């Protein structure tokens, strides 16, 4: 099967449309970034405390806010996380609202406050227990040590699979799990609590770390870009390097803008996605440039615009096939990779579209325009060249005449 055979699209003729499209897209992103006062930093970069909690019943945000307020956490932010049916929320404390000690203790205070309200207590929450902890308790309750671990693992997978999805309502639910005896249930009853929620994750990032990570992320991105410039300049010519890096900047700006429009946070994993996008985008440009270089050798007499158009057309089937395949991968990360990878998948998906486009719409026209300009400059453009040729011919004639 072949989809793209001997195409002859004049890409460079459309370059002004491309410019318009790029300007439009980046402006839209810029406006969103400006309107929202910069990118929405994730916890890694802004610092603070964030607790991710799953409730058994649909959480009533007002009630939770009230409970937190009663414990001196009135300035915490509440936010639903994922689809409403998951009953998950994020409770956050900002750096501005509290000092270091408060933030550090914040996680604990939040969990304790909720525990009092939703039926927890001094005892550890069974729904938060890892297999190792359960095995220890089982062993202490008289279950043989080698049997305890498998039972604990079965219990954990029973709890985490549907229909419980991480939260059992009563220890009686566990009766159906293989190896669970009434004695085991009694032990759990005595040594654990079963509040109506479980902490999925809890994070605290101090102010120093946030600032350091921001600096590091910026360094990584800038050094990544700079090294691409050097590599391409080394492998091709400096014009190719400059054109690629301009195209990469264009990609990054658009990806960040769209991230802001989509209301997603800029986190460490998103930075990883941006660097990956840089890598992929450069890769895509190299494929086109490689072909341009090859064709320049083959078609010495042709002008640069034609060569570039031909090269794009020749590599187009590869561009679309690979792009499509990687796109499917990133789309599946975006859709199925879970909430942690949502922003990552988004930036890669958008980035691969933009990165592929910018090879054809930004980098190639830049190089072609420069080459045309440089050639005209060196030889003084077509009319000058014609005049020069004539003068040269005249001189030749004179020489020949003198000899004669």
């Amino acid at each position, binding site marked *: 099967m072949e989809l793209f055979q001997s195409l002859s699209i004049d890409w460079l003729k459309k370059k002004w449309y491309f410019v318009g499209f790029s300007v439009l897209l980046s402006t839209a992103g810029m406006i969103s970034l400006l309107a929202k006062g910069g990118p929405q930093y994730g916890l890694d970069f802004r610092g603070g405390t964030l607790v991710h909690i799953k409730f058994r019943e649909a959480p009533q945000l007002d009630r939770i806010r009230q409970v937190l307020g009663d414990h001196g956490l009135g300035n915490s932010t509440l936010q639903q996380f994922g689809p409403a049916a998951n009953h998950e929320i994020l409770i956050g404390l900002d750096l501005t609202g509290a000092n270091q000690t408060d933030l550090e203790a914040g996680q604990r205070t939040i969990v304790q406050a909720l525990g009092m309200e939703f039926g927890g207590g001094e005892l550890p929450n069974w729904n*938060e227990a890892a297999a190792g902890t359960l095995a220890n308790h089982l062993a202490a309750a008289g279950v043989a040590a080698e049997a305890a671990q498998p039972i604990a693992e079965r219990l954990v997978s029973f709890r985490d699979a549907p229909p419980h999805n991480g939260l059992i309502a009563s220890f009686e639910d566990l009766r159906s799990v293989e190896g669970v005896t009434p004695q085991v249930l009694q032990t759990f009853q005595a040594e654990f609590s079963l509040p109506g929620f479980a902490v999925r*994750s809890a994070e*605290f990032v101090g102010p120093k770390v946030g600032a350091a990570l921001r600096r590091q992320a910026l360094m990584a991105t800038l050094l990544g870009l700079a090294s691409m410039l050097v590599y391409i300049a080394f492998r091709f010519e400096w014009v190719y390097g400059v054109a690629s890096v301009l195209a990469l900047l264009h990609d990054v700006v658009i990806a960040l803008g769209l991230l802001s429009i989509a209301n997603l946070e800029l986190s460490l994993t998103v930075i990883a996605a941006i660097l*990956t996008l840089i890598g992929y985008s450069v890769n895509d440009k190299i*494929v086109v440039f490689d072909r341009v270089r090859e064709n320049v050798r083959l078609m010495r007499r042709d002008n640069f615009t034609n060569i570039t158009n031909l090269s794009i057309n020749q590599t187009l089937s590869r561009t679309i096939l690979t792009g499509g395949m990687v796109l499917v991968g*990133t789309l599946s990360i975006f859709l199925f990779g*879970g909430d942690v*990878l949502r922003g990552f998948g988004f930036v890669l998906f958008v980035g691969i579209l933009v990165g592929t486009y910018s090879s054809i719409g930004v980098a190639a026209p830049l190089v072609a325009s420069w080459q045309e300009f440089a050639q005209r400059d060196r030889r003084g453009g077509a009319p000058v060249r014609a005049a020069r040729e004539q003068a040269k011919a005249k001189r030749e004639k004179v020489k020949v005449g003198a000899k004669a």
Partner: protein
Amino acid sequence: MSRNLLQKGIAIAVVVVASIYGVIGLPTSMSGLRQNMADRLRLGLDLQGGTHLVLQVMVNDAINAEADQTIERLRTTLQTREISFGSITRIDATDIYAEGGVEVQGIPLVPVDQRSAFQEAIDETELGWTYQRGEPGSYRLRLRPLALAEIRQQTLNQSVETIRNRVDSLGVSEPTIQERGQGEFEILVQLPGVDDPARVKEIMQTTALLEIKRVQAGPYSSRQQALQAHNGVLPVGTELIESVERPEAGEPLVANQWYLVSRVPAITGRELRNARPGRDENNRPEVDFTLSADGARRFGEFTEQNIGNMLAVVLDGKIQSVATIQSRITDSGRITGRFSQQWANNLSLMLRAGALPASMQYLEERTVGPSLGADSIRAGVLASAIGLAAVFIFMPIYYRLAGINAIIALLLNMLILMAALGYVGATLTLPGIAGIILTIGMAVDANVLVFERIREELHAGKTAVSAVEAGFSKAVLTIVDSNVTTVIAAFFLFLFGTGPVKGFAVTLTIGLAANMFTAVFVSRFMFDYLLSRQPRQAAISI
């Protein structure tokens, strides 16, 4: 098969066998197989659940402590040499980068001979210090750069050791405890499978410096009252310490009291041989301890000389309990105080593990619960499966038999990647799984580049053999270029990234390296092998 081809085949077979061994080892049973795979492929904290902590050691505490000791020594030296001086005070090192120091105020118009005697005293006894002359007769002592660096490094090392001891006694399996970064005095602690971070944090952060000191006077109801009782000046070698002692049963709870105690402890936690939780006669939690031989001898002397006096058990600068010495005590004692059974357990654990040389501050704390980790694994596996399925369906449709070739190369790539992760001891994180999905994409890219090139050559009228030859040789350079640029990007991620992001960089780099082998070498081998078994003019399925 030609000899060249045979050699290549053997090389590939060796890699395959090594990779399979790397993933599954030499299992003897199904459960052994599962166990081996779990051992070799280590999951990151974000996938298996656990706690990640970054602590900063406040090394200035140790510098201040050093300055205090120097002050004590200097005082003795100056007194024995009969050199007159005014006051000696510490210049506080207030943050981790501060140098600290000691300020010596002399009496103005010190005789010149005394001045040189003073300098001699410092030169001879305080080797780690240099001095600067300030106002007439006053000096400012600073730690020499080497001594300063040594104190800081020692404090950091000792903190790492102490935390390791404490974590070990908690029974956490495979913890990571190591220095992080450079010159920031940070310690990275990773505790897989820990689901109770609050307790761990408390145990790690408490300094747990135990001292037993002689009570000189007290109690006083407040600091002011204590100062007034001594006309505002404390006797030399004493200090005021707050007590957090609990009242006896039935007594009303009163505000914390203050005691005047000797500055130098009779014994410290260093002289402990063991500590364990127990219960006192009223069945309240307490901690019983026994002393080392040397400590017991000194404690015996101390208690013998002080029968009838009071002693204070001081923990981290707070008096836990005060008791009257009834008789000579040698090798055991107990700490009672206002604490729960859990705290008694923790305290005895910390005393056994030793005191921290400096206080610590948490810079970062991340805990992932076990069920979120399990969900992440499911999500990651689903996303990778979909990515793989797309390739498996598309490639044979579009490239026919060559598509199968690409699939085999891709599967081998995945196998090598998994084995390499095990061999280099890297951990698989959620972003790492994303790295695998991207590797799939890049691997397909290499195949597509080659196949498209072969098709072009075939269109140009070349035979199958020369088209394959030309296709590979022309595409290889492009493949190398594109892989190198992605590896450069991954390198910077590795350099600047933290945990999970590093995992992504490692996975992607290994995947791309494997890709160079599978998509170029192995795929070429498969083409050559098929062609070698066909008549020279036969077509290839692409």
